[in-house]
Each structure stands twice: as C-alpha cells, then as structure tokens.
C-alpha cells in the first residue's frame, strides 16, 4: 500500500488502513516519545495521544513531506506541549561554557540503544533541546519558538547536554577499559 493510499484510506476511516498506519510507524514513534518523556508509561500515553491526533488530522496532510516526517512532527509537537505544560525552568550558561571539548566521532562506536539510554538519562531541558536540535534537525531559533525560550537558552541547553553526554561516554569508556 502506497503512502497516498494509506492516507486516503485513513481519511475514509478504513480500519485496515488505520491499522496499517499503526503497524508501520508505531514503534518508530514510540522511540521518539521515549526520548522526550520521563517514563515508559508517559511515552506510551503520548504515543496513543499522538496517534489520535494523527488520525484526526490526516485530512490536513498535504504530501509536502513524507508521511513519516509529518507524523514525527505531530508527535514531537505533542511531546513539547506536554513538556511546556510541566513548566520546566530553563537556564542559560555563559558563552565560554559552549567551548567544551566534544569529539565529533564520540558516538561512532556506540550502539544506538546505548546512546538512547544516555539521552534518556539527561535532565528534561537538556534532553528536549538535544532531541530537537541534534536528532530532529530543528534550528535553535525554531526550538526557541517551540519551547517559548530564547535562542540563547536553547544553545546553552544543547551545550550542556553535549557536555553531560561526553561525561557519560568518558565514564563508559573508562569502565570498559578497566
């Protein structure tokens, strides 16, 4: 079934198409929700809510991007709204602190599940900005608008996230060598 057929079927409320949409993308979207949410249960709830939103809003999908990209965006927005509702306090750091040592090949040799675990362990603010910037590819300006924070705050959160990740990588490498 092509993407177009799938979307049109879902708009017609065709159960087969709706199930196909679930089977095809639910696990991928779950991995996205897990990265933004604080617990597995919260991520599962977010996933279900995201799918409700997706089914309800598929008629607005204009095929300007891939269906998966659109679904990811819907899910990200939902997770962001949840984070905003929690009223997280965002902190900035000075410019000097951006210049931290981070090896660009730091993740090359790491399993994705291992990286995922490290990302999940980050504090909410770092994790959210890290996910949005590094993984989803949003700019700091967009992130600032999405989260209702300054562009600078977004940058500093990302820098802190990288720093925290570097410490974790160093620790795990040190542990492996020992």
């Amino acid at each position: 079934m092509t993407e177009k057929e799938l979307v049109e079927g879902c708009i017609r409320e065709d159960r087969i198409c709706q199930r196909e949409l679930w089977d095809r993308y639910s696990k991928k979207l779950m991995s996205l929700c897990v990265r933004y949410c604080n617990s597995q249960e919260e991520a599962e709830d977010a996933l279900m809510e995201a799918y409700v939103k997706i089914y309800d809003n598929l008629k607005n999908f204009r095929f300007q991007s891939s269906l998966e990209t659109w679904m990811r965006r819907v899910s990200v927005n939902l997770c962001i709204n949840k984070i905003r509702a929690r009223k997280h306090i965002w902190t900035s750091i000075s410019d000097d602190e951006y210049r931290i040592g981070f090896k660009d090949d730091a993740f090359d040799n790491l399993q994705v599940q291992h990286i995922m675990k490290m990302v999940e362990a980050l504090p909410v603010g770092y994790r959210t900005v890290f996910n949005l910037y590094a993984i989803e590819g949003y700019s700091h300006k967009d992130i600032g608008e999405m989260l209702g924070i300054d562009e600078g705050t977004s940058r500093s959160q990302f820098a802190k996230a990288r720093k925290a990740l570097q410490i974790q990588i160093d620790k795990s490498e040190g542990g492996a060598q020992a």
Partner: protein
Amino acid sequence: MEENRFNQTLRDKFQDLESPFNDRVTFEAVMKKREKKKRRVIFWLPSVAVVAGLFLSAGLGYMFLSDSNSAVKLPQVALKNVVVKPSKKAFAKNQNEKSESLDGAGIKSAVISSKNTSSKSLKVSSPVNNQNLTANNKIITANTLVGDLLKAELPFVNAPVHVVEEAAATNLVDMINNAENQLIFCDPRGIYPVSIGMSRMKEEFIEIPEGEYEKAWDPARYRSKWYGEMGATTGSKVIVDFDNKNALSVLGTMYHANYQGLILRDLGNGIMLGTGISYGEWIGNGEWQLTQTERKTFIDSYDLVVMIPPVQTVRVYDTSEVIHVKLTTGDIQYKIDKVSLPLAMRYNLMLGKVAWRLAAQLNPGITTKTTGDYFTKTEYHSISQQRMFCMDAKLAFGPTFALSSDWTLVLEPNAMLHSFYDKSGKRTYSKVLTGFGMTIVRKF
C-alpha cells in the same frame, strides 16, 4: 562542520530505531480513545446548545416583555381605578404650555379628545403611540397625565377623557402602575401576564372593554388556571472534617440531580399548589481516613563502668516513649436513585420590575436503587437496602422570565434536603445540598 557530522551521525542512528511498548498500547486502545474523545464532544455540544438556547430564550423573553410596553396590543382592559382628576392649578399651568415638546426627555406627548358627558373617569382603552393629548380642544402634554393629572382633582373636567388613539405607552404604563389600589400583578396591557399566578383578580380592578374590543375580551383570562412545570435541579455539598478530633474522617463531595414534572393549580394571589412525579440521583464520592495512634515504650539498657574505686559496673536503663500514628485511607462512594411524588407550593411576586417565584416542596418517595456506603464527615454506613423511604424538600427562589404568553422560564437557586430512613439501622440520614435549577412553566 564538526557539529553537523555529529548531528548527522545521530540522526542516522535514530532514524530507524524502534522501541517496544506495553501490551496495553494497541491499535484498538487508540481507536477506543479516539471514539471516547469524539463522544465527549458529541455529549457536550447538545448540552451547551440547550443551555445557551435557554439563556437566549430567557433574554429574548425579557427583552420582548420590556419592549412590548411600547407595542400596540389591542384590545385592552379598561381599569376603573385609573381615574384621573387633575387639579385646577395643574391644568391651568398646562393650558399655558400649549403644545410642549418632550422628545428631548424621551417622553412623547399624546392626544386626548374630550367629550362633554357626565362621567369623571378616564378610561384607558389602549396604550398608544401618537404624540398629543387634547382636552376641551386644548393641547396638553403627556407629562401632565403622568404627573399632575394622575392624583389631582379636576372638578371642572366633567367629561370622560377617553384615550382613543395612540398615546405614549411608557407613560401610560407608568401611570397605571402608579395608580392607587392597583393589584401588583395587574398587567396594563391586559392580555399578556406580567407574571403567572395572577388569576382571580378583584372585580373592581377589572373593567370589560367597550366598543370594538368588547368581542375580544375573554373573562376567563382572570380565572384560575392550570399550569404544567418541568424542571431540573442540581446541587452539591463538600463533606470535610478539619477537626482532627475524630479517628475517622471523610473528605468527599455529594451531588444531586433531580428532574420533575408537576401539574399546578393557580389559586390566585400568586399562589399555586401542585403535585407530580420526580426522579432524583444522590451521589457521593470521596476518601476516608482512619487515624490510629499507638504509644510504644522502648527501654534501652547499657552498662556504665564507674572508674572511681571501688570500680563497679552500673546498669543504666533509658526509657523512651514514641507515639506511633498509623493512617489508613480508602475510597468511598454511594449512589441513591429515588422516585418521589412532590407536593409543591409556588408563590409568584413582583420585586421591582422583575417577577420572582418562591418555590417550596416536599418530595416523599422511595429509593429505587442504592449502591455503596453513605457517609458523613465522621462516619460511613453501608447501604444494604434497595427500597427505603425517603423524604426530600426543596426551597428555591429566583426570577421568572415570560418566554411567551404561555411559557415561562424560572431560574432557581435552591437548597435541597435529601434524606432517607434506614430501616435496619433505624436511623435517618440527611443532608442539605445547595445548587441551581431551571424550570419551564406552561400555562394551559
């Protein structure tokens, strides 16, 4: 560049990553959630529409009544008591004024044509719109009617001054309202009631219209009438024990919803009596907390070596007492459905320009279904019986709005007593809940 490579590496790694989820997360669960969301919207939309419709109707009804003061409603009732006897002084003053314009003050003048007959009464046949009043071929102004003419003596005007054409309705209504000995429920327009419950007017306040309007006059207008009433009432009460003196305390909320249909008989003077059938739900839910305190004594002992010769060991006992507080909590809820036969009394009255209604009623009945445990703020009891005698009472006072000549909306802030008799416990449990209700009354 470094950052881009780093981000790209991450994106590649995460692009196709899949995470497992719990069994409760299924396609069916999502669809169920979606259906529930849709149902929620579907449920609320009609409710909101109904409430909005009621308020809109009430508003329009109110506006209609307010505006219709100036509308021409023919035929009309002539009232004997509206006897206008202006004083010489006032009349003389107005003779000089000739045709005085009052439109700046929002008061319109009216035309009175007088005829030379022997009667002294002014028969107000219709509220009308035209601009001037003439008496004895002289133009006088409407404020004369409202002010000076109303209570003044006019011995030289020995002719009936009959308003035959249009006059300033507002002024006439005011005039009639201000007339001495006028019944509060007397509607100057005659046809449409200011409020319900206005039957059996004293005959001296009613005069059958003359001439072309006589045929349209229905004397049954002021006879006793039957009314039907449909109403819904809700209310709540918070149950909370802040004293901390009782071992058991309950924090909960009680709600009720009552729906009833009544037939009411208008007994006159604004009083109605009636009966009908009522169905009610009385629901409570909350949490109980049991506080148990326990005193525990701990005795520690240790040996103390006294180094002063002769060296000896002394056993020292240290006693301490701890108050251990154990809190046990649990959920509690009950639901009582009941059917009753209300005995209702209604009293309609005017306060200012708004019609109000005082409603009192007793609802003796039986419970039809009971579940859960009934609670007060310091105790709870299981409800074991399905059928119990119950007695409710309602007291409400609120404004009424005539939606049309037959339909009236009543808003009812109220207090409602709910009680039931527990045969097995030989106790009566009761609570007063306060809330809001709405009633529609239909005249037959």
